[in-house]
């Protein structure tokens, strides 16, 4: 297909439109037995017109799998230690350090040293656990915010919030971080590195082999309503907990430390 040579330079030229030639239609055009009418056409998603392009798209998605894909081999660096005070984890790639840092040191509550997966959860935690004003207000109004981003619902108690999360947002009843998901058997003997337990405030006081945290203010098990979909064979934390348990405290409202 031979394109006029001037075309290529036109592409990088200034925007513009041609002055249109005058349009002058004859009423006889496109009349029976003829039927042509200039019109724009649209195709819905499943139209067979799209078959070839769709197939190419999926071959591409599959190709990304059959080739050697993903991250290039991580360059190894001389071993180095995490610089956060009290942490002596050792690394030999920058990427594993990055992940360690973000998991353990990035969103850390400066009051109770718990680490959280996100800023959002950390902020919620600080508000609900270390803000005395929150406690006062929550007696009079619904203060417990739904954890799902975009959901504006607030609740009187953390239990109510949990129920909402389970029913409305299909969260698992035992939604939590930082605990092995086994309800029986001896508790894991903390982290192998001394420092991690500090960062997460592991007091080692587990009440029984259960994943019951000290943090729950309603220590009673969830009452099993008649016709409840789930029957619980073990105590369910009545709060949804994200982080290892430490008793609530009303420390002074210091600003949390920013780990940059």
């Amino acid at each position, binding site marked *: 297909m031979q394109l006029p040579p001037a075309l290529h330079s036109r592409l990088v030229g200034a925007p513009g439109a041609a002055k249109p030639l005058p349009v002058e239609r004859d009423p006889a055009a496109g009349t029976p037995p003829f039927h042509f009418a200039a019109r724009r056409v649209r195709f819905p998603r499943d139209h067979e017109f799209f078959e070839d392009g769709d197939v190419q798209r999926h071959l591409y998605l599959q190709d990304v799998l059959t080739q050697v894909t993903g991250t290039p081999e991580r360059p190894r660096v001389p071993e180095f230690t995490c610089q956060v005070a009290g942490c002596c984890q050792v690394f030999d790639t920058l990427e594993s350090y990055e992940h360690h840092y973000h998991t353990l040191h990035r969103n850390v509550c400066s009051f109770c040293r718990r680490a959280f*997966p996100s800023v959002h959860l950390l902020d919620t935690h600080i508000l609900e656990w270390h803000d005395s004003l929150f406690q006062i207000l929550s007696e009079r109004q619904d203060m417990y915010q739904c954890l799902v981003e*975009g959901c504006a619902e607030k609740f009187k108690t953390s239990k109510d919030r949990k129920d909402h999360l389970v029913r409305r947002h299909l969260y698992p009843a035992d939604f939590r971080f930082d605990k092995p998901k086994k309800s029986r058997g001896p508790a894991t003997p903390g982290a192998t590195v001394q420092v991690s337990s500090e960062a997460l405030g592991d007091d080692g006081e587990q009440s029984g082999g259960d994943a019951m945290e000290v943090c729950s203010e309603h220590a009673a098990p969830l009452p099993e309503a008649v016709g409840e979909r789930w029957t619980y064979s073990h105590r369910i934390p009545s709060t949804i907990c994200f982080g290892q348990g430490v008793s609530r405290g009303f420390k002074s409202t210091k600003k949390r430390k920013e780990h940059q």
Partner: protein
Amino acid sequence: MWSGRQSRLKPVGCVVEELRCRRREREAALRKARREQQLISKRLLRDDVLVEAEGGCVAMILGEAEIQQFLQLAQRGTEEKERERALVSLRRGLQHPETQRTFIWLEGSMRTLVGLLTSNQALLQLEAARCLHELSHSEQSAVAEACLPATSYLLTYLSGHSSDFIELCLYTLGNLIVESEAVRRQLLPQGIVPALAACIQSPHLTVLEALGYALSQLLQAKEAPEMIVPSVLGSTLPQNILRLLQPGPKLNLGVAVEFAWCLHYIICSQVNNALLISHGGLSTLGMLLLDVAGAVQRTEDAGLELLACPVLRCLSNLLTEAAVEVMGGPNQLEDERVVVALFILLQFFLQKQPSLLPEGLWLLNNLTANSPCFCTSLLSMDLIEPLLQLLPVSNVVSVLVLTVLCNVAEKGPAYCQHLWPGPLLPCLMGTLASSDTEVVGQSLELLQLLFLYRPEAVEAFLQQSGLQVLEKHQEEAQLQERVHALQQTALHR
């Protein structure tokens, strides 16, 4: 420009033929799947360089006892390296479908894995996520559905900070999403749309590409037009998608491909395209088209058609929206460089991917149908002849080319003056002789317009034995009336 997803293994000799053969098979399978509306493809992240270098997946089949052993070691081992290694071994095993099946049927296995996923040990967490990723990639629905307990955690991690980890979570989610409606029915109330909307602010290209992939899988779902597209349009995703498609030095091809496909699925669902237009979608896509054409001119990079295709589709479908009909309004696409870009792409398709020619010509139709401007551009930039050169490609292409020519011709004598004399009539003699009814039919339509607005062409038509060519079709049911009418016109000049 690509985010590093190139093959490091160069196939040699007969392996090339084998690869081609397998590709043809895969293509046939995909076509069949699409017709049955079962088009599913998943992405797999694997950075086990050593394993692949040995020329194949050395996935071991693990039995129940071995799986249990690895899980226990991972969970309760005393030495961190030991725990990590246990998970690595598990992950290797999970590359095999047999192991996957055994794993999901083993009681408590998923629970343990989720526990490790949410543990405070960063490297264990990463390995657990990789195991989950392997499972998500399975072609067995039961395996993917067994991963449901993990989804709320995966979503929570999207607002974390570790880009590698987020990328992994996104690909895992994308794989799960495409697998079954049950998964999507859970993910939507769990807040996947707001989670993705927050995550799209990430500056990391790898995260963005993964996000685009996951979102495209979500939008491709059968129930998307009713259940998913509305909430996506109601979020901040559309503006951010358009932002990421802005041409310029920061445009990343891998990222752009994914989000262009997202946009295509949104637009062809016909939910609220006016919203996209109000966010400047037309002009962004138009500029992007120029950018792609420019890239094609410079490099003819393999893979540019992967971006060109969805961009063409988006533009074409958006042009049919009522909001665009208002002439001279702010939502018009009037820059003739769009036509230039399109022709450069048509040439590129002809060489690299002829199956995309119909889609390109479809856009050309939508650009020219109601636009005297663009029709004039075709004439003033001498694009009629290149257009005619596409006629021999296929019947489908012929019909589309002829339709575009009709768009030009129907605008009247000023336009037809530039169509004849010229190469058009001889080409028309060729298409009139076609055995395909649609090709002939469209040729007859064009001929009527030409005779009407350029009567001088009739004489030339007769001299080129036009009547004899017409005669061939006078028995054809769908053509005879028009043939007859044209014969009359020609004879009464």
